[in-house]
């Protein structure tokens, strides 16, 4: 089997789920004839037809709303945001309609809204954001954020089968940069379970998305200095695998959280609070975090580089933590 990129893995997930279940339908802007801005849905219109690969006007409120409506019919719509930033235009449908539907009146919304997120491609303030915490903070929604092609496929398949609305964040920098061979047989990756990407004894780095790659690179360098970092890829942010994080901290006694999301209100705060509550006695040092700046994502390359957490930032923080 030839290695596949993350975006190809996503297409495979959509294709396989559409093949096995005719209730799976896709809806979005330019996803049909054009195959999607990033080609995640390429070829699916030809295969599944107009009724299942639905091109819409530029209407995020409209198309997310319609996807919610289709899900009330027992369908499993997968809505694409051309860039995840535009989910803000359909925010109300997400946090007030989809998220609260089951809780308020028992109306399940088996919906996935997926789209490219993240920086590092000089997309500027409106094509680079990481909006995961907008949705982690809206009970009723689930949030996944894969860092590998394998996970992207397996998590998306699970998300489609899940009976709840799931936001699937796909880092566009990784779309064609990560590549791996995928199993030829069918598989899924369960929501809510982190993956230990690299075992270690000296400190835990909890991270996800593109920062999982940066953290692994940092761990490589740290190993040369004799610091063995355990790298956790969270994969799902809601529900968060709190136990997985605690287990690792009990072993390493130190925790560094790395995310590309901005600092204030990022998930690092939630993780720190959880560890504080549940494993305070196990800590041998402060919980540190490496994050992007509390600013919009700037456009110019030197500014964006300053904004994004770099490998050197991670190694520096890890060394500091290892000294405790």
């Amino acid at each position, binding site marked *: 089997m030839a290695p596949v990129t993350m975006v190809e893995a996503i297409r495979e997930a959509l294709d396989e789920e559409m*093949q096995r279940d*005719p*209730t799976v*339908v896709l809806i979005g802007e330019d996803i*049909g*004839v054009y*195959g999607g801005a990033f080609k995640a849905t390429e*070829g699916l*219109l*030809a*295969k*599944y*037809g*107009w*009724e*299942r690969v*639905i091109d*819409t*006007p530029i*209407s*995020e*409120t*409209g*198309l*997310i*709303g*319609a*996807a*919610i*409506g*289709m*899900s*009330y*019919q*027992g*369908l*499993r*719509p997968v809505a694409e945001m051309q860039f995840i930033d535009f989910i803000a235009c359909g925010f*109300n*449908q997400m946090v*007030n*309609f989809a998220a*609260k*539907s*089951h*809780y*308020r*009146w*028992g*109306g*399940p*919304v*088996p919906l996935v809204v997926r789209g490219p997120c993240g920086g590092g491609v000089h997309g500027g303030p409106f094509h680079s954001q990481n909006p995961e915490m907008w949705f982690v903070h809206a*009970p*009723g929604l*689930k949030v996944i954020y894969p860092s590998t092609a394998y996970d992207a496929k397996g998590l998306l398949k699970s998300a489609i089968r899940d*009976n*709840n609305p799931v936001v699937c964040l796909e880092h566009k920098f990784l779309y064609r940069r990560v590549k791996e061979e995928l199993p030829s047989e069918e598989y899924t990756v369960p929501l809510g379970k982190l993956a230990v990407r690299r075992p270690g004894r000296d400190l835990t780095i909890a991270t996800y998305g593109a920062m999982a790659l940066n953290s692994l690179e940092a761990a490589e360098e740290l190993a040369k200095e004799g610091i063995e970092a355990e790298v956790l890829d969270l994969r799902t942010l809601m529900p968060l695998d709190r136990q997985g994080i605690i287990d690792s901290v009990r072993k390493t006694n130190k925790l560094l959280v790395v995310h590309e999301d901005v600092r204030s209100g990022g998930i690092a705060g939630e993780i720190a609070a959880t560890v504080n509550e549940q494993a305070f006695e196990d800590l041998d040092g402060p919980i540190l975090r490496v994050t992007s700046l509390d600013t919009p994502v700037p456009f110019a390359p030197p500014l964006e580089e300053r904004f994004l957490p770099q490998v050197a930032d991670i190694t520096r923080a890890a060394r500091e933590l290892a000294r405790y």
Partner: protein
Amino acid sequence: MALPEMKYPLSREQLLDLYYYMKLTRELDEQLVRLFRQNKVVGGLYSSIGQEASAVGTAYSLEPDDWIAPMIRNVGGLLVKGFRPRDILMQYMARSGSPTGGKDGTSHFGDIKKRHVVSPISMLGDLIPVMTGVAMGGRYLGQKLVTMTWIGDGGTSTGAFHEGMNLAASQHAPFVCVVENNQWAYSTPVSRQVPLKNLADRARAYGIPSFIMDGNDVVAVYQTTRQAVDMARRGEGPVLVESKTMRMKGHAQHDPAAYVPPEMFAYWKARDPIHRYEAWLTEHEVWDKKTQAEIAARIERELKEDLEFAESSPLPKPEVAEQGVYCEGCHTIEAHWERPQAEVQPPKSSVEAAWTVTDYGGLNGDAKPTAVAPTTAATPEAAPTNGAGAPAAAETAKSRSAGQRAAKAKHPARAASQPKGRG
């Protein structure tokens, strides 16, 4: 006097049914006000007094399997769909026996499996795309359904309304949107919201047909909406129906509506939908005093029973707050297929991924590029809707643009075998 001729004939039973639901809505409304004064209502209380015909006549034009999503002044629609006064009473009193078990109030509840009712959210406009989606989903599954929701005059100014209507139009969704023009959005009169006399004219922007009806004449409401529903069911795409009516109370209980000119209330009081219909039923000899008294007695009895039931329902247990955020195994989610599933699976579903573009977008609408002659601005179509303003007779207006007819013929979701793309 014999019954007038009706395009969609209503039997005596149906005519009395309409009366029952309207009167029940009114009596329930008044019962809720009494409960509110006794401090038994949790939160605000929103009245639909004056709008009973508008909610009941529209919902009554649907088939049992059709879907609705009521807004707060459409309690009558919920009753037509089979919910009972006790459901609404318990919702307003936040009791555990209410359809949401106390998790939400007012008319914010629904029933996906049986009654096909989608619960609204407070944010105005968001139901328009959602009910468009229910319609699209139903069509895909092969159901011959129509979906309907209501929106106030005020709600038509939201972005969600516009996106939803345009999406419904571009998808030719079997969807009927009832715009309840009750003259006020909270304290703001229509004239300060929209520079349009008739909200039905909004439909022109989406290239879809629209109607204006006298929302206080339940027979007219039924006849007009029924025509819209039939059009949608035939696959002619969404229809907008404007109901001219009046909110006869403040926005909610707390609001004395001092901003409404007293003469305006007087004008509409003389057109009260229930009194008008009572006179109509008498004039056309549909009922006699005895039947009227029987209906009144039935409503009184039912409301009394439901009130007792509702008041005996306890408040929900605190731990319920933690339950049900996620749907984990508590529902089976099944689509209701009315067409062979194989029809939508490859290779049958395969199409060529290409657009058919026949309109090059030139000024003269020709498919072929031609020399461009200087022109003046395009003249708008003659106004299709009734410009008269005051409540108009049913079916006064209907507009449909040439563009909509053209698009209709091409829409891929309409034909099982789609030749190419759509233009």
